[in-house]
C-alpha cells in the first residue's frame, strides 16, 4: 500500500511533465491537423537551455536558496522566450510553406526538423559526453506515512513544486484559451480555417501563436524535467516526445483537458509498470498503449470522434 502511494506520487509528478508536453501536440494537431514531430525536440531544447541558464546563474551568485529560486525563474522566463521563438520559426520555415502541399510533405519536413534539431544540440552541446547533469536542485522532503515494516512514503519538495507549477500554468493557459479573443480565434480556426479567415481572423498569426504557446509549455516541462532528474541528454526529446504524444492520443487528440488527463495516466502507468512488472519493458508498455488506443478508440477518452471531410 505504502509503496503504491509512493509510486502514485511519482507517477503524478512525471505525468504532469508529460501533460505539459502533450498540450503542445494536441493544440497543433487540433488547429492544423499535423503531428509536430519536432515538439519533443523543442522540449529537450527547453531543458538544455534551462541547464545552461541554471549553471550560469549559480556560478555567478552561488547556490543559496534565494539564488536557486532566482535561477529557476530565469530558466522559466528565458526558456519560454527562446523555445517560443524557436517553435514560431520552425512553423514559419518548415510547415507554413507546405500547408497546401501534398499530405506527406509537412510530416516529412517535421521529421527532418526534429532530426536536425536533435543532432544540432548533440553536435554543439554534447561534444564530450552524452548527458549533462547538475547537483540535485531541490532536495527537501516531507514524510507523510510510514508502513509497519519501516517503508517511509515521502513527498519530495520537487514533486510538490512540479505539480504546483503545472496546476498554475494550466489555469493561466485555460483562461487564455477559454476567455480571451486569442483563444476564441484558435477555437474558430480549429473548426473551420477558411470560415475563420473570412470573418477577419488572421489564421497564419493564430497558428503561429499556437505553436509559440505549445513551445512555452514544453519549455516549462523542460525546466521541471531538469528539476526532477537533474540531468539532460540530447536524446531526451524523442522518447518523452512519443510518450507525450501517446498521452495526447489517449486523452483524445484535440482536447486540452484530455492531454493533461492522458499525461497523468501515462505517467502513472509507466511508473507502476516499471515498479510492478518490468522496468526493461516500460517503453514497450507505453508504445503498446499508443497502438492499442489508436486501434480500439482513436477518439481517445475525452475527444470527439473524427469526421472525415472531403
Amino acid at each position, binding site marked *: 500500500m505504502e509503496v503504491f502511494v509512493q509510486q502514485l506520487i511519482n507517477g503524478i509528478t512525471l505525468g504532469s511533465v508529460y501533460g505539459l508536453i502533450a498540450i503542445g501536440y494536441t493544440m497543433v*494537431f487540433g488547429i492544423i*491537423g499535423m503531428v509536430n514531430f519536432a515538439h519533443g525536440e523543442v522540449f529537450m*531544447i527547453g531543458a*538544455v537551455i534551462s*541547464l*545552461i*541558464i541554471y*549553471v*550560469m546563474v549559480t*556560478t555567478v551568485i552561488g547556490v543559496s536558496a534565494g539564488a536557486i529560486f532566482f535561477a529557476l525563474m530565469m530558466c522559466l522566463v*528565458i526558456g519560454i522566450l*527562446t523555445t517560443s*521563438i*524557436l517553435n514560431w*520559426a520552425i512553423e514559419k*520555415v518548415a510547415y507554413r510553406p*507546405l500547408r497546401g*502541399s*501534398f*499530405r*506527406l*510533405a509537412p*510530416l*516529412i*519536413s517535421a*521529421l*527532418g*526538423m*526534429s*532530426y*536536425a534539431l*536533435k*543532432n*544540432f544540440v548533440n*553536435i*554543439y*552541446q554534447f*561534444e*564530450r559526453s552524452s548527458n*549533462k*547533469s*547538475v547537483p540535485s536542485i531541490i532536495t527537501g522532503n516531507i514524510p507523510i506515512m510510514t508502513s509497519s515494516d519501516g517503508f517511509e512514503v515521502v513527498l519530495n519538495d520537487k514533486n510538490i513544486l512540479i505539480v504546483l507549477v503545472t496546476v498554475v500554468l494550466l489555469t493561466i493557459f485555460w483562461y487564455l484559451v477559454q476567455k480571451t479573443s486569442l483563444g476564441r480565434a484558435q477555437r474558430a480556426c480549429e473548426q473551420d480555417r477558411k470560415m475563420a479567415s473570412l470573418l477577419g481572423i488572421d489564421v497564419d498569426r493564430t497558428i503561429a501563436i499556437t505553436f509559440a504557446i505549445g513551445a512555452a509549455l514544453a519549455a516549462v516541462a523542460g525546466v521541471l524535467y531538469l528539476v526532477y532528474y537533474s540531468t539532460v541528454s540530447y536524446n531526451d526529446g524523442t522518447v518523452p516526445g*512519443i510518450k507525450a504524444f*501517446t498521452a495526447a*492520443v489517449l486523452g483524445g487528440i484535440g482536447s486540452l483537458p484530455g492531454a493533461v488527463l492522458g499525461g497523468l495516466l501515462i505517467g502513472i502507468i509507466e511508473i507502476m509498470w516499471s515498479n510492478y512488472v*518490468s522496468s*526493461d*519493458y516500460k*517503453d*514497450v508498455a507505453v*508504445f*503498446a498503449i*499508443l*497502438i492499442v488506443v*489508436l*486501434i480500439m478508440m*482513436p477518439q481517445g477518452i475525452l475527444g470527439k470522434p*473524427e469526421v*472525415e471531410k*472531403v
Partner: protein
Amino acid sequence: MSASSSEMMTANVPKGVNWSYAFKEAFTTAVIALALLCLLLGVTTEGGQNILIFKPARLAFAVFLAFVVRFLVVVQKERKAARLEAERLDAVAGIQPKKRRNWFERAEPYLQPVLFFLMAFFPIVLVTTLGGQASTKWVDNYGIVIMIYIMLGWGLNIVVGLAGLLDLGYVAFYAIGSYTYALLAQYYGFSFWMALPVAGVMAALWGIMLGFPVLRLRGDYLAVVTLAFGEIIRSVAVNWKDFTGGSAGISAPKITFFGIPFNASDEGFAAKFGLEFLPIHRSIFLYYIIFGLAILTAVVTLKLKKLPIGRAWEALREDEIACKSLGLNTRNTKLTAFAIGAMFGGFAGAFFGARQGFLTPESFSFEESVLILATVVFGGMGSLVGVVLAAIVLNGGSELLREATFLEPYIGSDPNRYRLFVVGVGMVVMMLWKPRGLISTRTPTVFLNERKAVSGSLVKEGHG
C-alpha cells in the same frame, strides 16, 4: 508593357530584385537567429563541474550564415516570382513559353542504363584496376553498404512512394529479417538460402499483423504507430536476452558459397577453385547477392506498377476518399503495399545478417529508419533512379565526411557528427524545394486517348 511587347512579339523581361527588401529580411532573420542561438551555440558547459565556456566565434558564424541563407532565399524567391509574372504576361500576349525541363528529367532516361551497368560491373572494374587487396575496402564499405540502402530504399519506396503511406518503422522489418536468419541458423541450423525466403515471409507476416489494424488510421497516426512499432521491436531485441542475446548480440553464420566457406582452409572457396585466398572473393559474392536481391525488388516494383494493384496504390496515394467512393478496398490495397515493402525489408535483413555475421539491436535504431526514409525522400518519392543516386550520395557523402578530418579545426568537432544533422536539414529543404520529387511533371500510367504530362504542382492530393 505587355501591350507593347505583344506588338513586337518579344517576351517580357522579368522585373529586377528588390535588394533593400532582401537585406531587411536577412537582417531580421539574423536577429532572430542570434536570439535563438546565443545560449545553444554561444555557451556550453563542460565536465562534471559544469565549467562555462563561451564560444562567440561559432555564434557569430551561425548568425552570419543565417543572414546569407535568408538573403539568397529571398533573392531567389523574388526572381522566380518575377519570372512567373513575365511568363504570365507572355501567355496573355499569346507568346508560347519555352518548355522547361529540369536537368534530372533530361538525364533520367540515360541515367537508368548507366547506373545499372555501373552497379553490375562495379566490383569487377575495381578488382581489375585496383587488384584484389586494395579493392576489398571499396566493395565492402561502399558497394555492399550502398546496395543495401538501395534495396531498402526501393522496398520502402513501395510503401511511401507508391502507396503514400509514411512508414517510420521500416527498420523493424529489416530487424525481423536479420533476426529470423540468425535465430533459425542458431536453433535449427538453417543456411542462408533456406532462411532467406523465411525471413521475407516473416517480415511480410509482421507487416500484415501490424498493418491490419493500423492501416485505417490517418497518415499522421500511421507514421507514429510505425515509429512505435520499430521501437518495440528494438526494445524486445534488447531486453529478451535469453532468446535474442540482448544488447550483447547474437551471431549469425557468415555466408558460404553454396556450402563452401570463404576461408583460407583446404575446404575453403579459394582452395577448391584453385585460387589464391583473398577476402575479396567473399565481398564480391556478397555484392552480387545483394545486387540480385535489389534488382529483384526493382523488377517486382516495375511489374506491380503496371498491374491493377499498382495502379490502385498510386490512386490511393493521390486521393483516398475518391478511391473509397469508387469501391476500391483501401485496406487490402494498403495492406499489400505494406506487406510487400516489409518482405523486401526482410530479405535485406537476412542478407545483412549473413554479411555481418553478428547482430546487435544497435543496428536497428530509429536512426536507420530515418536514413532509409531520407534515401526515398531525396531520391524524389517514387523514382527508382532517384533512390540509387540518393543512396550513393548519402553513404558516399558520409564516408567522405569520415575522411574529411582536415575540416576539424574549422568546425570544431568531428565532421562525421554533422552527417545526421545534414540529413535532417536536407529532408526539410527537399520538402520545401521539390516536395514531389525531382521530377516536376508526372506522366500518368493510365490515360485516356492521349498521354499528357501533368505538372507536379497541379496534382493535388486529398486527405486520407
